[in-house]
Structures are given as C-alpha cells and as structure tokens.
C-alpha cells in the first residue's frame, strides 16, 4: 500500500524539478522574513533570484544547531505568532532547548508524511495503534498521533512509561501496532515475559520504532520478543519530527519524503557534497515548511543515500540506518567510537543482552573505556573461570570491533538504568 502514489512514485527528474521550485520559493520567503538568513545570504553575495533550481542548492550556506540556539526562541520563524499553532522543543542537554514552530499547514504536512510512513508498515484504519512515544514537547508522541488519525487508525495515546498499563491496554484493547523507542519496545517485550502474559493475548503485528539508534540485532530481538515485524522510522524535530523517512516492507533503507525534505550527504569536515552511496553527514532542507524552513540543516547523523528504485515501487531515495551521530561519536585515544558498535557486538553474542553502559575516563592524560554489561541468569555460571572467560570474550570482541582496548565489567542484572524514552548509553567523564 502506498499513501501518496503521486509523490512517492514520481519520476526522479520530475521530482527534482518540483524540489527546485519549492527551494527557490522558500529562499525568497526566508529572505523576506528572517533577518538571520537575509544577512547570511548577503554575506555570501546570494540573492533569492540566484536560486532557481536544485543545481543551485550547494551555493547555499549550512544551518547548524548552534544557529537555532543563537536565534532562541522564535528568531527563525517566518510567520508572526498568530500563524503558529504548535510549538515543540527538544531537551537541551547543553544550554537552551531547540524550539520549533508549526503552522496549520505544517501540521497537515507532518500528518501526511507520518500517514505515508504508517502505510509503509501496513497500518490501515483497521488497526489499533498504541503510541508509547512521549507526548509533550518531544515530537514523537504527537507526530505519530496525528499521522495515525490521518490514516484513520484507532489511536491509544498512552505516551511513554507506566509499563503495567501499557501491557494491560495492549491485552484488553488488542493493540495491533506499537510505536515507541526501540529500547522501550525491548523493555515491554521483556515485561510481557516477566508478567507471564499469554502470547495469544498479544495482537501486535507491527512496530514503528525510532528516535534513537538501534541495530539489526536489536531488531531481531524485538521481533522475537513481541512477535512482530519491526520498522525503523527516522526524524528530527528541527526538520519536522518523526516521518522524515521510513522503511517500507522491503526494509532496504528508509525512504526520505524528498518532496518535502531535500536530502544531501556532505563531508562533515569540508562541507563538500558527496555522491549517492558515500558515507557522510546527512543534511536536510525542509523546503515546504512554513513556520520554520531551514536551509541545509546539518543533522550530525552519519549515513549513506541510495537512489535506485525500490522493489516496493517508490522512487524516493533510501537512507541507511545511521551509523551514529557526529555528536554521539566518542573519540577515544584518537579512535571514533559509536555506542551502536558495542551494541552490535553484544547482540551477536548469544550469552549477553543489549544492556550496557560506556564510561570514558581520562587518567594521567590517557583515555580509558569501561563497558558495563549485565550478567544474565541464562549465562551466569557459578564458576569464576567461566565468568572471567566470558568477560574476556566480550572484551576481545569489542576490542576487535572498535580497534581500541576496553575494560568490560560484569554487573548484576537490572543495575543498568532502563529507559522509558531515549536510552542513556554513555557517560563521558573527561569533559567534567
């Protein structure tokens, strides 16, 4: 099923023409309404008339998260407050939160792209969707909610947390689709087993998971625990929220809704645009957004794009699962380390579970990496030599994956904090 065949299956040449028109109109609009962008374009000697097609996109300057902070809260809005119907904000771990605004048309566009996404996972009006993403300032809950209503599914707006209630409603209401973060999906899957809920009382068939990085191993684990097909959804509040891209049934990458969000891959160091197939930083220009369109916004996510036509019939480019975020990336002793790599190692080993915590310290000017891994009852041996053997095995598997040595410490089950939202996987004590 395809929600919007016209745009999702459009010939790429025609799509590029439409993108160019939308880009050109958007640049004129921000020139006239956002002093920040007018000044930045003027500094580069660019006038709106210079941007006429997609070929002109690389001439434009980038926008960074810092630019959003500098213009906090409403400095990048193109419309007066009267035109704004919704505000969302991302948690500001450093400094002020990032604020995004939406007009009525923005909400309609967002609902449309999420409806397209849900349709990719086979969601129809016959489904009952349990939205266990957080509702509130975070875009996850309301984003999925509006999209699911657009499709016509029955929405359970339960939000995140309150696991007992999640399980009760899942059983009683017969939820067929679950939408939440992948770590919470795994947590719910384990809770179903712990609560000894009968498998046949769970009617779930599909899950829509995103908002944090996860691996193929974790997908298999969630699919096994919940007995569903798990789909990856991608988005970020700066661009719209969830629904920037989504996996179809072929699961060969996430289709980007390019008619609204123009993607590019750049070399994060030089800013140079890279061809399809190369790894680099993902950049988006949400050209149709009214309240807060951004020019070439740097997501800090590292991935590749593929433009070959998908077996599902869609012509939209597909992005690979992000390798990591440029800002999630830890540089330890000069080596780039992503938490997702550690997770992949743990999931590949049958004896361990994907509950881990990375702690980076600096002692005598030398970085050290400690990885806490929970001991699971299924592999707990009562012999020291076996547990030490397991620890050494994990240590060497992680060492060969990361290319640096680390210390693995086995901890008691349940000691690593479970998250109801985004999982905390890293403690970097070097910056303190």
């Amino acid at each position: 099923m395809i929600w919007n065949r016209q745009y999702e299956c459009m010939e790429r040449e025609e799509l590029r023409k439409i993108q160019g028109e939308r880009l050109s109109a958007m640049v004129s609009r921000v020139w006239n309404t956002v002093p920040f962008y007018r000044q930045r374009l003027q500094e580069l000697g660019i006038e709106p008339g210079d941007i006429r097609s997609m070929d002109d996109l690389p001439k434009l300057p980038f926008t960074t998260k810092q630019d959003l902070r500098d213009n906090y809260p409403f400095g990048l809005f193109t419309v007066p407050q009267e035109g704004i119907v919704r505000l969302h904000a991302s948690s500001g771990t450093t400094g002020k939160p990032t604020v995004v605004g939406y007009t009525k048309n923005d909400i309609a566009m967002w609902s449309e792209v999420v409806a397209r996404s849900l349709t990719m996972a086979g969601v129809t009006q016959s489904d009952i969707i349990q939205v266990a993403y957080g509702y509130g300032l975070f875009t996850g809950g309301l984003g999925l909610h509006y999209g699911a209503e657009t499709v016509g599914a029955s929405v359970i707006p339960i939000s995140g947390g309150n696991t007992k209630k999640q399980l009760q409603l899942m059983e009683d209401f017969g939820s067929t689709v679950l939408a939440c973060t992948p770590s919470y999906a795994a947590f719910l899957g384990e809770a179903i087993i712990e609560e000894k809920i009968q498998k046949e009382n769970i009617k779930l068939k599909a899950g829509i998971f995103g908002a944090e990085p996860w691996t193929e191993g974790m997908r298999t684990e969630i699919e096994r625990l919940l007995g569903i097909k798990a789909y990856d959804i991608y988005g970020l509040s700066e661009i719209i929220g969830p629904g920037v891209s989504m996996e179809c049934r072929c699961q060969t990458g996430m289709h980007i809704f390019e008619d609204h969000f123009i993607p590019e891959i750049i070399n994060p160091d030089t800013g140079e645009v890279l061809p399809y197939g190369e790894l680099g930083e993902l950049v988006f220009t949400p050209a149709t957004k009214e309240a807060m369109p951004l020019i070439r916004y740097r997501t800090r996510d590292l991935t590749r794009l593929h433009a070959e036509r998908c077996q599902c019939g869609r012509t939209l480019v597909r992005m690979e699962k992000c390798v990591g975020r440029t800002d999630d990336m830890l540089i330890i002793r000069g080596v780039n380390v992503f938490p997702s790599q550690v997770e992949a190692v743990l999931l590949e080993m049958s004896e361990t579970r994907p509950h881990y915590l990375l702690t980076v310290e600096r002692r005598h000017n030398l970085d050290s990496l400690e990885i806490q891994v929970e001991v699971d009852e299924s592999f707990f041996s009562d012999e020291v030599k076996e547990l030490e053997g397991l620890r050494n095995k994990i240590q060497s598997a992680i060492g060969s994956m990361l290319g640096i040595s680390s210390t693995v410490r086995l901890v008691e089950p349940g000691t690593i904090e479970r998250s109801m939202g985004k999982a905390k996987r890293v403690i970097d004590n070097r910056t303190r």
Partner: protein
Amino acid sequence: MIIRQLSVFLENRTGRLTELTGILSENGINISAFSIADSTDFGILRMIVGKPELAEHVLRQKGFAVKVTDVICLIVPDKPGSLHHALGILSENDIAIDYMYAFSSAEGRATVVIRTAVPQAAIRVLSQHRLELVQAGDIYQI
C-alpha cells in the same frame, strides 16, 4: 544425597552482601554453609540453605542472578588425615573437583561441600568406602 546449592552473582560493592543476608533473614531462611569466590570486580556467593526454593524465588524477585547447582556434602571426622582419605578415594576414581569448601562443627565432625561434574559417581564411590554423606532432608526444612 544430592544437595541443591544456590550460587548468586554479586558485584564487589559495599553493602551488597548485607542486602542479600537481609533478604534471607526476613524470610526466615537459615544458611547452613557458604563461601565466596571472588575476582577483581565480582564475586560468586555459594550457599546451602534451609529452604532453597524459597531462597531462589525471593532473591530472583529482588533482582539477583541466581543459579542452582547440585553438590554433595561429605561428613568427615574433625581430625588429621580424614579429608586426605576422602579426597584420595575421589582422585583414585578420576573424579575431578570443580571447587569445594568446608566447615567443622562442635560435635567433632566437619562438613565438606564438593562440586563435581559427576556427583552420582562421587556418591557411589564415597558410599562404597563407607563415608558419610549429608541427606537432603537433614538440611532442608519442610
């Protein structure tokens, strides 16, 4: 004659052992024997308790990783050479010991807890040599 031993994974952290003994105490579970095997960052507590099923259940509920293993408990006179005699029988019969721990009591007897991969064989040869083994019923409380 096979005794169920509980093994519990413990992080090396102040107060963790006290939490465990507190849970057993609250549930009226008596510890007949115990030992701790330790490495640099974790320990394995092994113990023989009066109510193994209950202990396993309450400890699991409190989030401990618990494993039940079969051991045998040998009783030897508390005097020189008696342990040597018993171990000699096992080694003559090629029965390897994974680990063991022992304690002596006031009545001039010592109890030796032995973990081996072949407990039935160990029971057989020790019984043939008329060595005394603790019966499960002697330790477990109903």
